[in-house]
């Protein structure tokens, strides 16, 4: 047994075969100018269209083949009339065809020639044809026949400016003809659903859906009639079409035809007839997807508004916003069961509309959001994912339109809509907001705005009540918090008072973020504050000593508190780094006690919290580097801090690390441009200590592995010697350098040393540097001249 589609293919093939055979004979008749046979075979050919066994798609294929053949027959009829055959006779003659369907196709074909001949007014022929087509009441056959009539008459309508334009009121005739054909077709189409057994309902719906364009095409034809101006559209076309749409009471037809009306007629017409068009909406069947219809209308009008500023007055003149807003309200009112998705889609379209049409009326936008909130209230969080998406679209629209978060912040209902989203979506929305700010480089310049903004993005700032972030992907979380960090950098105001307020506001919010967020959010806040310090640094202290004024000291106190919040987490390395940054800033502000305090904090952290040896290495180098740049300390404070730092260095776990940290400490005693901080002796002490440690490291390596390790450390120390030698440290003599070089050479040549190409290369380039300095001549050359070096012969 064949299944349905194979059956259909068989029927189609049979239909095509019959059609081809008869058209073959028809052509022979045409070639020999045999009118009688031409009519006979064309009628037989057209009989194939009487089938009921094909789906609309397949029937269309068959129809198109017949259609092509009929074009040739039409040409033949034209030739016949040129040869003297009366068109009126022809019009009579074709009516002798036995079956009604072929008869009507032939009649339409001759009718087309008849109109062209102008022997009768176009409107009379058309009227006759459209009436005669009532003879076919089978939906599919009738729809195709009428579609044929519509197509052959397409260029013969008595439109204005057309050659078929008659004496008076002719456009009306053209419109009347198309409307009548449309009405009849819609009836056939709607009636189709009631024919056949109930179990085939689904199949019928599908077939009806396929056939819809045959009906809709009439509206396209109407829209192409030039004589249909706004008045005629308003007075005749739209009311008549809507009447048909409303009265057919069919869901499929109503939805489709409303869509067609919106798409085929021009925007200007829609604007001028909004009342009528919108008035039809509540009259449609309750099952019609009215939200999509209205959304499409608003989308179209939004595009129109966006196309040119010149059209905007049209919108204002007809109060389009108020009308659409009311219509939406009525539709939502009338359908209390409308799902949230529908509600939000409607408001989203309306918002887009008002943003395009009334970019200056923020109150309209806020009004739309407010109406949306009212509908959402009492329903709890939105759970439907499509509806959620739609809300995101709704909330993104103002950001896209204004490219400026400041505008969105003015919309009082904006955060209220946000509340109906679920937690993950609130976070997505917050990210969208931050991205918009970053993309447009928007400066957030007052604490009030910061406050409002944090309200919008609170999903990222703190855990929402009762939910945890456990489920959140670690990478996503980092990404989000990094974006918050970037955002904090966008807060800026020239006025220190306001900037301090901003900092206080940010602090208040981020403190609520909990231990997972603080490591991301504290650093940008610290740097924001330091930026303010730098700004104030150049200015004179307030001469009146007003306590309320913003001073670096005050900010440093705040900074101390901010960094302290990290203590409970714990992220001691981060806190240490931030303390050091602050110390350096305090140094530049000449605030010795403050700087000392920050260093103290850093040292405490180092001693009490940082136990990992790798972290210790990183931190000790940061401490040394920062301390080296400090010039604010008096001798006593400085001694305390440097002493501690060298002490820490010597206590690192691994010898090589100790060695490196200790020789780095040598720089603490020799600061260029500060003559009071040049202590050659202590530099030498550090270097000698480093050498001792390097020696010890070698011996340990020897003892543990049986071979000495690399001489790398010695070469590094040699470089330090050379540095201080060049800088004029009197304690570093040629002799000490010379002996160090010899030590290195001996080590490298010793049997137990494994060869180390990196060390060899390092030494070679160090010595090349010495050579280079010698060649410079002058004072430098003289200084270096005594250093001797004989490379090892390979």
């Amino acid at each position: 047994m064949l299944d349905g589609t194979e059956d259909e293919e068989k029927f189609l093939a049979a239909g095509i075969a019959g059609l081809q055979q008869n058209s073959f004979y028809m052509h022979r008749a045409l070639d020999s100018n045999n009118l009688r046979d031409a009519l006979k075979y064309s009628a037989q050919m057209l009989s194939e269209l009487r089938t009921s066994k094909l789906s609309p798609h397949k029937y269309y294929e068959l129809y198109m083949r017949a259609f092509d053949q009929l074009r040739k027959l039409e040409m033949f009829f034209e030739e016949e009339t040129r040869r003297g055959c009366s068109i009126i006779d022809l019009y009579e003659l074709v009516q002798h065809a036995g079956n009604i369907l072929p008869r009507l196709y032939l009649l339409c074909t001759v009718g087309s020639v008849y109109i062209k001949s102008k022997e009768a007014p176009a409107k009379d022929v058309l009227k006759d044809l459209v009436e005669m087509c009532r003879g076919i009441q089978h939906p599919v056959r009738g729809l195709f026949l009428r579609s044929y009539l519509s197509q052959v008459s397409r260029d013969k309508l008595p439109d204005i400016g057309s050659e078929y334009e008659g004496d008076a009121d002719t456009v009306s005739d053209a419109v009347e003809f198309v409307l009548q054909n449309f009405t009849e077709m819609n009836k056939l189409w709607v009636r189709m659903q009631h024919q056949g057994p109930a179990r085939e309902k689904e199949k019928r719906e599908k077939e009806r859906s396929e056939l819809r364009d045959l009906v809709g095409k009439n509206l396209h034809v109407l829209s192409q009639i030039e004589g249909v101006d706004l008045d005629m559209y308003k007075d005749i076309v739209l009311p008549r079409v809507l009447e048909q749409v409303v009265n057919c009471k069919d869901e499929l037809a109503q939805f489709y035809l409303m869509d067609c009306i919106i798409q085929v007629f021009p925007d200007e017409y829609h604007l001028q007839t909004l009342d009528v068009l919108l008035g039809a909406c509540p009259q449609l069947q309750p099952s019609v997807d009215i939200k999509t219809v209205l959304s499409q209308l608003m989308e179209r009008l939004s595009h129109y508004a966006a196309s040119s500023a010149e059209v905007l007055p049209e919108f204002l003149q007809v109060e389009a916003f108020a009308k659409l807003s009311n219509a939406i309200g009525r539709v939502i009112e009338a359908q209390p069961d409308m799902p949230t998705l529908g509600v939000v889609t409607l408001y989203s379209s309306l918002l887009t509309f008002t943003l395009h049409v009334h970019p200056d009326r923020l109150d309209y936008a806020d009004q739309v959001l407010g109406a949306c909130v009212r509908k959402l209230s009492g329903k709890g969080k939105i759970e439907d994912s499509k509806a959620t998406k739609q809300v995101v679209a709704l909330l993104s629209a103002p950001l896209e339109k204004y490219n400026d978060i400041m505008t969105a912040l003015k919309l009082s209902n904006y955060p209220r809509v946000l509340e109906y989203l679920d937690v993950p979506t609130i976070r997505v929305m917050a990210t969208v907001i931050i991205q918009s700010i970053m993309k447009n480089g928007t400066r957030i310049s007052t604490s009030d705005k910061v406050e409002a903004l944090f309200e919008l993005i609170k999903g990222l700032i703190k855990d929402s009540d009762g939910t945890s972030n456990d489920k959140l992907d670690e990478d996503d979380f980092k990404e989000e918090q990094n974006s918050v960090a970037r955002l904090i950098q966008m807060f800026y105001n020239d006025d220190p008072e306001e900037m301090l307020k901003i900092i206080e506001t940010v602090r208040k919010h981020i403190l609520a973020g909990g231990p997972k967020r603080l490591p991301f959010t504290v650093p940008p806040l610290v740097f924001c504050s330091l930026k303010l310090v730098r700004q104030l640094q150049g200015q004179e202290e307030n001469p009146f000593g007003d306590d309320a004024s913003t001073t670096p000291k005050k900010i440093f106190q705040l900074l101390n508190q901010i960094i302290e919040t990290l203590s409970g987490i714990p992220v001691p390395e981060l806190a240490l780094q931030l303390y050091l940054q602050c110390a350096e800033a305090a140094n530049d502000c000449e605030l010795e006690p403050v700087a000392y305090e920050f260093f103290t904090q850093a040292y405490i952290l180092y001693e009490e919290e940082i136990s990992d040896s790798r972290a210790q290495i990183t931190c000790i180098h940061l401490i040394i580097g920062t301390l080296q740049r400090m010039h604010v300390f008096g001798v006593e404070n400085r001694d305390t801090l440097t002493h501690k730092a060298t002490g820490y260095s010597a206590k690192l776990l691994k010898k090589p690390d100790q060695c490196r940290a200790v020789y780095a400490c040598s720089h603490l005693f020799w600061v260029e441009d500060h003559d009071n901080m040049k202590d050659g002796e202590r530099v030498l002490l550090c270097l000698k200590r480093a050498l001792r440690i390097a020696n010890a490291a070698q011996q340990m390596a020897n003892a543990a592995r049986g071979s000495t390790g690399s001489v790398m450390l010695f070469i590094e120390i040699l470089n330090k010697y050379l540095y201080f030698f060049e800088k004029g440290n009197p304690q570093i003599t040629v002799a000490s350098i010379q002996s160090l070089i010899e030590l290195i050479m001996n080590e490298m040549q010793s049997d137990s040393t494994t060869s180390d190409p990196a060390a060899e290369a390092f030494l070679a380039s160090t010595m090349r540097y010495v050579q280079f300095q010698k060649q410079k001549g002058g004072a430098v050359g003289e200084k270096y001249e005594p250093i001797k070096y004989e490379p090892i012969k390979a």
Partner: protein
Amino acid sequence: MPSRRRTLLKVIILGDSGVGKTSLMNQYVNKKFSNQYKATIGADFLTKEVQFEDRLFTLQIWDTAGQERFQSLGVAFYRGADCCVLVYDVNSMKSFENLNNWRDEFLIQASPSDPENFPFVVIGNKIDIDGGNSRVVSEKKARAWCASKGNIPYFETSAKEGVNVEEAFQCIAKDALKSGEEEELYLPDTIDVGNSSQQRSTGCEC
């Protein structure tokens, strides 16, 4: 004897929604233009008589819906086309990029006997907009694409101002004629001498 079937040339216009297919046809056939956007539903044709080398031809120009939802019955009307016109809007990159899809879709659905040499013509429309300042598809890019698809003739037009429309359709008509896309020759299996009536009518007598 001039064959009747050769005097009718069928042309299909394809392209994205809103690129100006209907406007091009209206400008060419009726010398009219409207700035208003009106969607096309289904397929619709206009005819125009053209003279070529002392012979008259009827050009049957099929305008189509660019929006898929208005093409519910499928594309059976592609069948027997002599030339296919692909239209894009020079101010819309997407409409240009979609030419590929339209071309492929046409070749699949119309399945011409020699797809390699089936005549296409590409039209870049709306060159008038904003004095050409909002243009995003360069002529060079468009020509390169046409060259890569077997040297498709290329025209830049303004349906609004009637620029190059006539020239484009001249080329279309010429190519359609040249293509000589012969309809499959049909010969009946048996030649009935008697009066063979088709007795496969089904139920309803209409």
